[in-house]
């Protein structure tokens, strides 16, 4: 491997300042579980790496009345073992448990999974249904974008030069809400999703009060379903509606054939995963 400079700081403003002045090609690295693989396969070619894993500002989980803020450099293992996240955002914990293996989750971060912007990143569909906002910082500036606006395409996002992800703000789910994360992979660990979905809903008086649904690994980016929630909201779910909603899956997703799976299979399996979720609330 060629020579690469690693720049690490424990001070956020110092790092942002360095980043602003940086003229070389760089990548941000936290746990390195994606960056190291991309480097090895020559899919990225930076001259230096900025390591954010030492920034304490990025490693906090803050809970307030109706939202949770998770620092971008908090490891997945730490999120999974956080009791408040488990209680108020169980769908995120379910999704993170599907990522890689324990070894990977001990290093990988939420910021890395989103920053890598892979359509197969397991955390992203969960963040979609939790209406996550991405807080972005750069020297002297801060901005916040919705998760669905953050990702532009496979491995492309809105981060500009000098910017890093600081944190994610997600909804705190109510006690009357339920959620699922379901994934089809080839083996029990270290398997990239062939297809996955995150699902969150609330029933009140047998009527669907709210519903969020998103699909991963079945298009260039994670897809937020609009048609299926529209179909259900305000209605009483019944087998007819469920059949109809499953038939809408193929209209909402744009899967491809690759060697992990075929498009045809991805559609079918997502229909089935969705049916499994919907059967739960009938």
């Amino acid at each position: 491997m060629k020579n690469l400079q690693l720049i690490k700081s424990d001070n956020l403003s110092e790092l942002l300042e360095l980043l602003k002045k940086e003229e070389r090609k760089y990548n941000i690295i936290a746990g390195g579980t994606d960056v190291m693989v991309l480097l090895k396969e020559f899919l990225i070619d930076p001259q230096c790496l900025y390591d954010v894993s030492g920034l304490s500002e990025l490693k906090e989980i803050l809970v307030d009345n109706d939202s949770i803020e998770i620092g971008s450099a908090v490891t997945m293992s730490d999120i999974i073992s956080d009791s408040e996240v488990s209680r108020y955002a169980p769908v995120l914990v379910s999704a993170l448990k599907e990522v890689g293996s324990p070894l990977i989750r001990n290093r990988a971060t939420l910021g890395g999974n989103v920053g890598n912007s892979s359509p197969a990143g397991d955390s992203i569909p969960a963040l979609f249904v939790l209406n996550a906002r991405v807080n972005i910082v750069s020297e002297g500036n801060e901005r916040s974008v919705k998760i669905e606006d953050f990702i532009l395409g496979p491995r492309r996002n809105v981060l500009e030069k000098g910017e890093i992800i600081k944190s994610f703000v997600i909804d705190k789910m109510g006690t009357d809400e339920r959620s699922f994360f379901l994934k089809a992979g080839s083996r029990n660990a270290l398997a990239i999703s062939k297809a996955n979905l995150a699902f969150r809903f609330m029933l009140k008086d047998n009527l669907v009060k709210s519903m969020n649904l998103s699909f991963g690994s079945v298009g260039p980016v994670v897809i937020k379903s609009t048609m299926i929630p529209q179909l259900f909201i305000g209605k009483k779910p019944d087998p007819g509606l469920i059949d109809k909603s499953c038939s809408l899956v193929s209209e909402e997703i744009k899967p491809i054939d690759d060697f992990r799976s075929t498009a045809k299979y991805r559609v079918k399996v997502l229909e089935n995963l969705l049916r499994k979720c919907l059967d739960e609330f009938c």
Partner: protein
Amino acid sequence: MSKKFKVVKTSVEKVDGYSLVAGRGVFVDDIDLPGMLQIKMLTSPHAHAVIKSINIKKAEALEGVHTIMTHENVPRIPHTTAGQGFPEPSPYDTYTFRRKVRFVGDRVAAVVAETEEIAEEAMKLIEVEYDVLPAVFDPKDAIKEGAPIIHDEEDCYIPIPVAYEPERNLCAHVDVEAGDFDKAYAESDVQVDREYYSHYAQHCPMEPHICIGYPDENDRLVLRVSTQVPFHSRRITAQCTGIPIRKIRVIKPRIGGGFGTKQEVLLEDVVAFAVMRTGRPVRWALTRKEEFISSRTRHPQYVNIKIGANKDGKINAMEMKVLSNTGAYGSHALTVMSNCGSKVLPLYRCKNIRFWGDTAYTNMPVAGAYRGYGATQAAFAMECVISEVAQKIGMDTVEFRKMNHIKSGEGSPIFEKLGEGKEGVPQTIGSCGLAECIEWGEKEIEWGKKNPPSEPHKRRGKGVAILMQGSSVPEIDMGSAFIKMNEDGSFNLLMGATDLGTGSDTVLSQIAAEVLGTTEKFIIPYSSDTDFTPFDVGAYASSTTYLTGSAVLKTAEKVKEQIFGVAQNMGPFKDCSVDEMYLEDAQVKCKTCDKTISFSDICNFAMYAKDQFQIAACESHITHKSPPPFTAHFVEVEVDTMTGKVDLLKYVAPVDCGTPINPILADGQTQGAVVNGISFALTEEYFFNEKGVMLNPDFNNYKILSTVDMPELKTTLIDTYEETGPFGAKSVSEISINGALPAIANAIYDAVGVRINNGPFTPEKVYMAMKELKK
């Protein structure tokens, strides 16, 4: 049946265990020689092309580049990379460098440079002009008229008298028949005729291929190689380079796994040339990517089985037709294909048997030896079809197997007809614990009991496969051992047999210790070094315990005789006859008097007292049989009807390997082989694009099973005693890789009613097959 032993049949500690876990075990790459150069190989981007021109001037001019080798400056000597006995039953169709490249990953030019990085830079400066030829990827297409001819060179040939027709891409052919298959099949009540395909796979040893070469102080060439076959490595290196055998020394240090891929002489020729040209130490290590693309794979095969049976359950006729894909070169092309028949067909009692095998050249990665060696591919087809026949008759699939499987004292016409590159050896089965294996497995898996699924959309099913393998290649393979005694009563045991992580150093030490009345702690095994250890064909064909084990046993017997002879010359034993003497507790003892002499005293007397000599012996062994180990694999699966994912709930593998010399090591071989087989059956897969480029040459995208994927695995060793083996032992290493494909396929059928005839059983494949069924 079982006999009393002291050291054998005991799970003594692995002799190199501590050193390995402490990180002291020295592998090929654990030495760093001053001034060592590095090799990188430029390989072909085309599946089939003639090299029109190759310009290395710019690359040679790069600082740090020492030499570059191509087909223009290296002698062209036809040989095979298959590390088999001489003359090999594989065609001489390979040259160190070739004018024509035949698969994506074929050698083009080797750069020898100060560092790997410089070598990689230099590779980019080599200008190669290719004349791209049409390529053929499927063996069925390859043997059709008009297909591109892959080996059209005039100087390739096969050194033994067998069919070889490269002019129509036919690398090997065998057909044999016993009885009258056609008639018997036609007259059968039930007929099943099915084609199965078993897919590409790689061995994935932890340690990829590596070779370090250097000139010693006498200008002999020393090669440290990660090899299963040090003596074949020496012979083939001599053949390719013209260096006389006496000038080559091959050292096999600790090895990080082989599974057959290191029964190949893959790197040594280039390293030898590089050492000759530079006079410096040279290292060539394959990366994992190169290991996938340019080393060796399992032979993918189409296997067509026809079975005719009567309603009463008797098998009348069996036919196996194999079309094997050897890729660009014919390493093990003939023998893997013929092994399909010889290790699978004899399992069932049947008079009318036909075997037809073809091996085709294609422009695909090169296949070679891989654990199971054809039996894996053929057992998949056979055991699925056997179940289907039973179901058609209306019999339980286990009962049908019990009724038809071979038993002790029985033979098979296939043993005699089908050998390795020639006719086989007639044999009858000696030890056979297959019935006991089936009985144990049935109980453990609760055969016949249908368990409820864990969730409503899942379905459960159970499957079975019974298997046999062999133990060494009879009348062909030879192993030998050398033992000498030291003053403290210890013994050096020098063997050409290669422990590649299998534990054979331990097992063979136990055999020596058992004969010599001592413990394995007093045996100092060393394997292998062509300068110091006697010849052995190497670690393949499930042979080491059975073949080399017998050589060790014979050698130890000779040493024992010498010890008795010395004892008789010593005061206390003057009046004792040799017939009365025996060895126990590292002492010579006498059955009639209670005198003893320690080994230490024996050796000191022999070395220093009177008629001095070195107590030592060397014996060789060949086998006249290849006694099969047996096993019955049972599996319970749960298939998710929503995703097609197959979860293994329980896998049961009782094995009859005769006497397990070291039960824990034997069981470890079984567990390892089972996991290897499950991984092949469920996830391992090569993906190619339309140009023959492998798309997933890394562990990120080529999935091997991990610990969390393991089902509950129950193994046991069924006690039998093989009279022809050392202390009753047979082989154990290969057999259990063959069960997963058919047993899981049969279980999937039991669960969801679909027969999957090609691996791996991915969620997509199973799901789509279920959809088809619904239609």
